[in-house]
């Protein structure tokens, strides 16, 4: 359907730069998520893409057509808003038909009573299209209600429906799930992914929730301070982050970070333990990041910490370990069986595979190895 290119987009509000020359290439039919903490500029970027906001400089190109100065309605994009932005005085059916009325009817044909009489054909067509979409979204029964009489989840579907009827080049979604309760949110993630597969349309999705980004996207762009820090498939971002900030933002519970000292000889000392780190070639302070699932309980583990808190999620148990020399407790994921053997206040011994270790320099940049690390006995 549509390939979208954002080219060197810059935007400032007054003296505050919000976007500092952001470029992003979105392939046809891709589900791309812009994810980042609030205030990172992701919503502004989406609004610039939609045309609701004008960039200070840079270009927006859709299917090789430069649309930088084109009005939103003429870009043929559809947007789903966080607050749904349904017209409260119109029924569900009328809400869904609005984009079609605006696009396909002349002002005369849109007139209240006369319009449907003089343009019976177009009105019938629009009604048909709306009810087709309603059917796919399973909201046919709601067509004559007003938004005020709907639940949050139902409004969400209507907002999606209004976006779908016009068969846009791409769907833009601005935190569409954040007003739903937790259970419904998880359910809607699956439904949105399913919808994307069915429509084969380009989705650009903005969220601050890294879980939504990981679960739904083909690719995700992590944004911070008005810049895209890394673009890639969710696995890639999760397992191979470019910077410490990205590593910290993606993943829940958050990645454990340990201060360490690179020796310059391919080894580093972390909390008094030596680990092979071929990526380090100079003597320097570094930060080691290890995900909770990569910390392993082991009798012979070379690290040990006191269990201060057990977070039992049923399938997994997260142990919070206090260690000398660390401000924050480490979080370790254990199986319920392993965790059962450890009580609060016990000392737990654990270790991790150096291959699972992410090493960052003092500036937070990632140090990468050319050959995979091997444990020296």
């Amino acid at each position, binding site marked *: 359907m549509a390939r979208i290119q954002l080219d060197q987009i810059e935007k400032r509000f007054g003296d505050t730069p919000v976007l500092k020359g952001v470029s992003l290439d979105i392939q046809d039919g891709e589900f791309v998520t812009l994810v980042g903490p609030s205030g990172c500029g992701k919503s502004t970027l989406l609004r610039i893409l939609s045309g609701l906001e*004008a960039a200070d400089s840079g270009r927006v190109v859709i299917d090789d057509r430069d649309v*930088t*100065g*084109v009005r939103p309605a003429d870009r043929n994009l559809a947007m789903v808003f966080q607050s749904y932005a349904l017209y409260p005085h119109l029924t569900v059916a009328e809400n869904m038909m609005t984009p079609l009325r605006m696009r396909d009817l002349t002002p005369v044909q849109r007139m209240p009573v006369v319009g449907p009489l003089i343009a019976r054909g177009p009105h019938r067509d629009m009604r048909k299209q709306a009810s087709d979409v309603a059917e796919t979204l399973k909201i046919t029964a709601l067509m004559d209600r007003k938004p005020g009489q709907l639940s949050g989840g139902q409004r969400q579907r209507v907002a999606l429906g209004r976006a779908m009827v016009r068969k846009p080049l791409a769907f833009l979604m601005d935190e569409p799930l954040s007003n739903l309760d937790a259970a419904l949110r998880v359910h809607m993630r699956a439904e949105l992914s399913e919808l994307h597969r069915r429509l084969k349309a380009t989705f650009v999705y903005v969220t601050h929730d890294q879980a939504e980004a990981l679960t739904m996207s083909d690719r995700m762009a992590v944004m911070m301070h008005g810049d895209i820090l890394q673009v890639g498939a969710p696995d890639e971002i999760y397992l191979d982050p470019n910077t410490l900030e990205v590593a910290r933002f993606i993943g829940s519970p958050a990645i454990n970070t340990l201060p360490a000292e690179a020796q310059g000889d391919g080894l580093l000392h972390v909390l008094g333990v030596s680990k092979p780190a071929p990526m380090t070639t100079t003597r320097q302070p570094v930060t080691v990041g290890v995900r909770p699932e990569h910390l392993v309980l082991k009798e012979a583990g070379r690290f040990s910490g006191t269990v201060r808190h057990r977070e039992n999620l049923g399938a997994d148990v997260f142990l919070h370990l206090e260690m000398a020399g660390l401000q924050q407790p480490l979080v370790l994921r254990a199986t319920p069986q392993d965790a059962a053997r450890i009580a609060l206040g016990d000392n737990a011994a654990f270790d991790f595979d150096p291959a699972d270790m992410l090493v960052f320099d003092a500036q937070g940049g990632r140090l990468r190895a050319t050959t995979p690390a091997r444990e020296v006995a």
Partner: protein
Amino acid sequence: MSEARAQSFRFNTGAATTHAILIVGALIVLLPFYTMISLSLKAPHEIMQQTGGFIGAQEAFRDDYCVKLGNAAENCMVNPIIYNYSTAFEKAPLVRYLLNGLIVTVSIFVIQVLVALPCAYALAKLRFWGREAVFALVLFCLLIPVHAIALPLYIMLAKAGLTNTYAALIIPWTISVFGIFLMRQFFMTVPDDLIDAARMDGMTEFAIIWRVMLPTAIPALMAFGIFSVVAHWNDYFWPRIVITGNRDLFTPPLGLREFKGDADGDNFGPMMATACIIVTPLIVCFLLAQRRFIEGITLSGMK
């Protein structure tokens, strides 16, 4: 790029048109204020001949009334501004009128609060038999404009021998059904927990109203106060009916009306000076605390 520029150009002409329309409107709105101030500054002959621009020449002129009293003409030369404003204060007890206005508006507001607040509290937070009926009565009374029932009220006051008293000016306004309604709506938003906590602390219901509810309601009361004071300071109809002849009880609008009643051509200046003096207090307060005033006057929009 060109499209964007075209858009911003359109916006500019749009804004210019908007300003043009609004400025014409503003001129029409301000016209009588301009006239009022200007006339209060000018000498009688300037008023009659429409000369002198906004403030007039400010040349001293002969006060004929003073001459009539037997003074020498040269002692009767007065500056227009001083003449207009001093006549306004001398010819009628204007200070007295202003004081009356203050007494009446403040008394009305205080009594309205004393009556309405407990009732609103009871309607919002207490459970008792007949509460719905009382509230329905309040809603019904909201429909009644007090001005419309002036005649029977006047007869009742006359029978009670209360015409030409402060009481007559105040009594019909002591009950503000709107105030009750408004305060009730406001109290509905105060969490029950706050009241329960006060009860746990051993406060009586009376203490809760004055020591817990009143302080939380200050913003709403301020707005209601402005609404009430503006309405009654400017009210002309009701004082006109119940105050007949006793000038000691005149409110500012009545005083101005009396002035007009016996105004001849010469007295336009002093009359406009009186008008300025009567209008100024509220306008000044309004300019100082616009937001609150607009909130207060449009309170009725909160329904």
